[in-house]
């Protein structure tokens, strides 16, 4: 829009455009109330309106939108999972992501980089071969590569990892990408708002009104809202919300920490992950190295970060890239990861009628934002979960039908 840009440049005032309406007070009732204004909740609001014409929707956010795990992850988008159900689901997400900047009319800095999961042991190589075969079977571009190909993609990498953990090979996943995570939340928020959904920040849900097994409304810090359908999309706050409706789940909360370096000239094109060294790293479009590690080892409901984490992570980074020894860490933070025993999410209906759960996103939620919003919107609109998320249902635990993604969901186990 060069003409619009020119007019803007010559104009005397430059108001920041609002992304969604600043509404004061929620209405007395809504068709659907979504708890949690992160990527998942806002995407669900967006697809409820776009795919199903349901626009009488409120999104209630305790803090500010995208301020939870949506804005705390390391922005990696990939689909090289271990189970066919998982690969299918995350692949559908990657496909939406690829066209999402256009669809939301917002530059998400979606950048396709290629993703290497490094293997330092023969047993890790076995898992890589397994994942590659499952991926290929489902039609996702993943293959096992040797050290030569890794060196070609990333000549800066010390393939011996300072002699501690020589790299034997990797799982290469071509669609692996990174994106601007806060942009995803803001884009979906604007899209949902334009279609009629109402977003309320600084609005905490304090209770859920359940009458004879059915949702009747929610108590909030801005008063009572009547509704028959509630979606909980609150990641690390899930156990507090499920407690409001007396629902037991396997979810436990562990902090997951991350950090970034000062910005540098672009040198790292690929996304690199090492399970053995507990590191994943990419270089953002701003030039910072974005780095994460494994979960903190015990349950804590807090977003504090620790020196132990940054010392451990950087020592492993130096095994891989000794030349970074003078680079400074400029920020570190943590998110509250809602972990499940099988490292797959918990999505769909619950025993409480009208209470829908989008949770158990642990360390793997950002990449699933579009598809989880789409499938949860479908679940709410039809009161029936689509086939695609059947393996992620809450009742899989009492059916002893777990969806084991542990080998592909995270690092450090």
């Amino acid at each position: 829009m060069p003409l619009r840009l020119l007019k803007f440049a010559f104009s005397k005032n430059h108001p920041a455009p609002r992304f969604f309406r600043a509404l004061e007070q929620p209405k007395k009732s809504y068709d659907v109330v979504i708890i949690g204004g992160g990527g998942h909740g806002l995407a669900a609001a967006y697809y409820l309106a776009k795919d199903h014409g349901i626009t009488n929707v409120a999104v209630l956010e305790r803090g500010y939108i995208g301020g939870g795990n949506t804005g705390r992850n390391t922005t990696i988008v990939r689909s090289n999972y271990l189970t066919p159900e998982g690969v299918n689901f995350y692949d559908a997400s990657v496909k939406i992501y690829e066209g999402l900047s256009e669809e939301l009319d917002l530059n998400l800095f979606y950048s396709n980089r290629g993703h290497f999961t490094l293997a330092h042991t023969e047993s890790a190589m076995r898992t890589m071969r397994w994942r590659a075969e499952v991926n290929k079977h489902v039609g996702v571009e993943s293959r096992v590569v040797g050290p030569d190909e890794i060196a070609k993609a990333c000549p800066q990498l010390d393939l011996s990892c300072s002699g501690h953990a020589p790299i034997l090979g990797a799982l290469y996943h071509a669609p692996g990408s990174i994106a601007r995570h806060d942009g995803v939340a803001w884009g979906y928020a604007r899209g949902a708002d334009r279609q009629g959904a109402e977003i309320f920040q600084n609005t905490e849900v304090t209770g859920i009104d359940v009458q004879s097994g059915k949702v009747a409304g929610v108590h909030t810090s801005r008063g009572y809202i009547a509704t028959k359908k509630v979606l909980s999309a609150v990641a690390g706050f899930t156990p507090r919300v499920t407690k409001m409706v007396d629902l037991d789940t396997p979810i436990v909360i562990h902090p997951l920490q991350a950090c970034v370096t000062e910005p540098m000239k672009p040198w790292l094109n690929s996304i690199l992950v090492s399970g053995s060294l507990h590191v994943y790293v990419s270089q953002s479009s701003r030039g910072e190295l974005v780095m994460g590690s494994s979960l903190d080892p015990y349950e804590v409901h807090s977003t504090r970060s620790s020196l132990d984490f940054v010392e451990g992570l950087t020592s492993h980074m130096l095994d891989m890239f000794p030349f970074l020894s003078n680079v400074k860490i400029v920020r570190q933070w943590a998110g509250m990861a809602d972990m499940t025993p099988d490292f797959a999410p918990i999505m769909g209906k619950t025993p409480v009628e009208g209470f829908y759960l989008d949770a158990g996103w642990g360390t793997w939620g950002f990449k699933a934002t579009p598809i989880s919003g789409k499938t949860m919107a479908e679940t709410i609109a039809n009161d029936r979960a689509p086939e695609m998320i059947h393996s992620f249902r809450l009742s899989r635990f009492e059916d002893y039908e777990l969806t084991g993604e542990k080998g592909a969901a995270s690092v450090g186990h």
Partner: protein
Amino acid sequence: MKLLHCPMNGTRPISEFVFGGEFRDMPDPEASTDKEWAAYVHNRNGAPGLKKEWWYHGPSGTWFIAERNTLTEEVLRTYLFGQETAA
């Protein structure tokens, strides 16, 4: 560095310890239904608060109980299993 008090070895760095999850009573496997047993196996009390937890001191092989607030990370007390009243 974070520290934790082991009832056998005194105060040690947290890196010497392993978290063993919340202390829970096991239902009678003979008397419980499949559904009750599945709930025991999988479900957890994930909400924050003061919890009784299993912890393990690796170097000495000591399992013990810690009473810890999972919201504030304060440890109220630690004691060997069965010695709650003595602690």
